[in-house]
């Protein structure tokens, strides 16, 4: 042990250096804490929150009951019971639509799978409940979430511009047919 190291040992040099660091952090008080219920962080643009069912601007449901979301879901969250639209044998809709959000892992595969963009991911994340059965959502609840999260709705498919009609991808910069 050299003389310098010996001096450092008996004067607790290393410990004092560490204590200087903690004291410096206390004096330059810049907490990283976000006081969550009082202040909320800014969510990223592509945030994947609560799932919702969407409507067209005339209030009809987008969902055509094709079950592709159910097939795409890796956690078996979604259950669709499809039915014919009464009086219109060529059209179908989801008679019942259930989501068990206790199992959802918010991967967004169902949103990707939907051919008519009937599913959307909102920016809601405060879904803590006391009874987990409250997270077993039916169609009305999911439509309500969609209504409050997406106030701007798309037009019906046949009223949209022909270039974008097939997959109903909403290119906002393309001209839309007047309703």
């Amino acid at each position, binding site marked *: 042990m050299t003389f310098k190291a010996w001096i450092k040992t008996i004067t607790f040099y290393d410990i004092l250096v*560490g*204590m200087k*660091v*903690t*004291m410096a*952090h*206390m004096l330059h008080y810049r907490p990283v*804490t976000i006081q969550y219920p009082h202040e909320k962080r800014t969510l990223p643009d592509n945030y994947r929150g609560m799932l919702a069912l969407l409507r067209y601007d005339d209030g009809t449901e987008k969902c055509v009951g094709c079950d592709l979301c159910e097939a795409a879901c890796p956690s078996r969250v979604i259950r669709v019971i499809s039915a014919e639209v009464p009086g219109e044998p060529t059209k179908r809709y989801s008679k019942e639509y259930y989501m068990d959000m206790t199992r959802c892992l918010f991967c967004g595969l169902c949103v990707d799978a939907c051919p008519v963009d009937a599913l959307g991911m909102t920016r809601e994340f405060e879904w803590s409940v006391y009874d987990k059965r409250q997270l077993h959502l039916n169609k009305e609840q999911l439509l309500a979430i969609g209504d409050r999260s997406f106030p701007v709705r798309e037009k019906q498919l046949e009223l949209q511009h022909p270039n974008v009609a097939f997959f109903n991808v909403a290119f906002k910069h393309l001209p839309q047919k007047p309703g």
Partner: protein
Amino acid sequence: MTELSLRLAVTFAQILAEMSIVIITVATMTYFERKVLGWMQDRMGPMEVGPYGLLQPVADGIKLFFKEDIVPAGANKAMFALAPMLTMVVAMIGFAVIPFGPNITLDIYGVTIKPFVVADINIGVLYILAIASIGAYGIILGGWASNSKYSLLGGLRAAAQVISYELNVGLALVGVLLLAGTLSLVQITEAQAGGFWHWFIWGGRPNGFFPIHTQIFAFVVFIISAVAETNRIPFDLPEAESELVAGFFTEYSGMRFAFFVSAEYANMTLVSCVASALFLGGWNAPYPGTIFEYIGLEQLAWVEHIAWFAAKVYFFLFLFIWIRATLPRLRYDQLMRFGWKVMLPIALANIIITSITLYFFPRG
């Protein structure tokens, strides 16, 4: 009869006042420990209950008071109930000999009382050492009576650690006792009056300028051993959270848990008081006399004395938190080697060197 009852009433009032001060200090410490730890780790600490979380100790107290009191199956019920009481009571009664303020006497209807010390006994230091040793029994009993492996291991570690470091605490104090020539904390503090160079951490200037009686090594040994004896980080092996859940009080809940935690903070306050009284001059200001005396308010000098004592004690309490925020926990063999191979020889050498210097340069 009337004199006895008056004496009893005055003593009970003193005890009540002193207990209140200690309890308030403990409550404040639970708040400021979390606050200061938060500040040092770039967090905020408690912020929800009251403004800036100031009512957090009250909320904690109410919560712990109404919590279920669980006695584990197979526990020794009598010992299980005794352990927290023993720890708490012992932590509280140690304060009886601590002088909070100057050694003035008051005459109330013919009864002479000392307002700032409950019991000025002539074996004060010995009393504190004895009481602190009984506190270890509470920890060991609590660990053993819980019928839990974690508790038992924590209790065993506490036994070994407290015995090892209690020795160093006692030996570190011997140098001060040699210098003061008394065991009474009041007289030890009085011997350090007249400026900070008379504090026993420097030991006065018997040989002109050089402070040859310096007790700074004993002071460092005392502070480190006091941290170890109160089971604080970095010596918190009896309650090592990541190894033993909560150590000796793993199985305790509700008010019994609160007793253990308050006893830990009360012990911290006690060793801070002892360190201030023995090494940093107790109630004495770092300059000779007091400012109130200079400006002609002799009757208010005790306010300044008490303020200086409180400042020293709270500095030590802050030091405890500061160390906790900085250092990681020692390994068990490191703890034992440090206690027996480093601290003990330094304390022993300090006794010998102080005796020799005191023989050749007696205090004037």
